[in-house]
């Protein structure tokens, strides 16, 4: 039994039953398939997390985001005073995280690619784009540049899904996606 020492002194040479060997072989192969699936997706898949990352002083990132918002602001979000910013298609967009907001609101065009720069000014936050359910961790002092291509027009929520303090649950942001040539 499993609570007694092995019955034979040299148990390493005991034969393994065929069915057990088959299962080990199948499980090993399955592991290889799953391993190479990740590599395959890097080559042929469309959804891979960017590795374009650099260290940045949070104050510098804040300044760049402010400049970006000022330059491409198209309107304000209701009476909240938050700018809605529409970057040029194919260009850079900035969104910063700080307790407790994602700032500014972005307006993107469907089918166009954007280089989205995200970083945090204080703690770790979680960029969770809903309802498409795309989740990226955000660190202070690290700028992450993710190229995204919205596929459908609509209003998308950005929820913070990394606990960041007692106001964590009010930390939201927004991204509008409009058809090409519309909006603004």
């Amino acid at each position: 039994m499993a609570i007694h020492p092995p019955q034979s002194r040299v148990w390493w040479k005991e034969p393994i039953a065929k069915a057990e060997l088959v299962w080990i072989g199948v499980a090993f192969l399955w592991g290889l398939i799953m391993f190479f699936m990740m590599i395959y997706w890097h080559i042929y898949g469309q959804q891979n997390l960017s590795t374009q990352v650099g260290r940045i002083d949070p104050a510098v990132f804040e300044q760049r985001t402010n400049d970006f918002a000022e330059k491409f602001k198209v309107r304000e979000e209701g009476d909240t005073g938050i700018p809605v910013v529409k970057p040029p298609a194919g260009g850079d967009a900035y969104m910063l995280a700080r307790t407790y907001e994602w700032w500014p609101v972005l307006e993107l065009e469907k089918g166009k690619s954007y280089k989205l720069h995200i970083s945090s000014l204080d703690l770790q936050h979680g960029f969770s784009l809903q309802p498409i359910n795309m989740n990226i961790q955000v660190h202070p002092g690290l700028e992450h540049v993710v190229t995204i291509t919205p596929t459908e027009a609509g209003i998308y929520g950005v929820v913070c899904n990394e606990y960041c303090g007692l106001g964590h649950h009010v930390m939201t942001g927004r991204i509008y996606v409009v058809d090409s040539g519309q909006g603004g």
Partner: protein
Amino acid sequence: MAEQPKTDSPAAPLERIPFMQRVLDNPFLLLFAGVVVPAVIYILWGVMEISQIPLVK
């Protein structure tokens, strides 16, 4: 268990215990491997990558 009681240490080749069995019977060798493998592949490699993140221009 008709065999004589085992008195082997990993350094006792006279016992003719297969190599892998001797490895699995040696807790301290396993401890060493179980600490070194993740320490190198996960921690050390990870720390190197994090310390090499470039500065944003």
